[in-house]
């Protein structure tokens, strides 16, 4: 299988569309015949990242590389950045505003889910510049 490169743009605050990249990638991986466990791990980690771009940044960009033995995903944004990444990684920590909490977001479980379901997880954030999250799932 040749490597496949995909790019997605995630708009700001559009919760109807947020999730489209994850759904599209899931459908493609299904066609490629990846195991349902691998697809689930990719889908969960990418969706959490995608939603964070929509809620906490001003949208952002996703790039995905599908190789024969792994799926690599990077999410980049030019949002506010995260002042204390270790704190943000803690289960239950959330700065989500009330209007998105009423939609069911804001449990403070997104980043922990990404770390749990991705086999490799890296986050880099600079206040006032933006955040980059890269994840790899072996398939």
């Amino acid at each position: 299988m040749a490597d496949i490169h995909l790019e997605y743009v995630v708009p700001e605050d559009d919760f109807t569309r947020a999730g489209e990249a994850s759904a599209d990638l899931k459908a493609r991986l299904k066609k490629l015949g990846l195991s349902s466990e691998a697809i689930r791990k990719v889908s969960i980690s990418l969706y959490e990242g995608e939603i964070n771009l929509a809620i906490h940044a001003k949208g952002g960009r996703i790039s995905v590389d599908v190789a024969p033995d792994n799926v690599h995903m990077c999410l980049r944004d030019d949002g506010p950045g995260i002042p204390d990444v270790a704190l943000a990684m803690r289960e239950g920590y959330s700065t989500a505003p009330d209007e998105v909490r009423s939609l069911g977001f804001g449990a403070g479980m997104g980043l922990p889910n990404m770390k749990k379901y991705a086999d490799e997880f890296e986050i880099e954030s600079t206040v006032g510049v933006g955040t980059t999250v890269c994840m790899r799932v072996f398939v």
Partner: protein
Amino acid sequence: MTTTDLLKLEAFLPAVTAEERAITDVYCADLLSWAMGNAPEDGAWCTVMGNVNAVAVAALADVAVIVLCENAELAEDAKQKAAGQGVNIVTTALPAFKAALAIAQAAGLVKP
């Protein structure tokens, strides 16, 4: 038990009927990231969240069916998204615990 069997139970009504799925577990949560991280594949997910984001979570976590409890509203765009993505949704007047218990008993997951 399957999603078709679920609809034979009196308390559950069809809202979106997609592919028939086996139900092997039951899970209750309303916060989406909890459900995303913990809802079991092939589970019946009991929740009061009837929006597009709940549908996205159900599709990506690959649950068998969303059980929308306490007659919570199913948004029209969520219904359309579920139909498009092949997500089963049933509704019930029962609260999440009673819905989960009824499903678990019918599926033989707990003793009646």
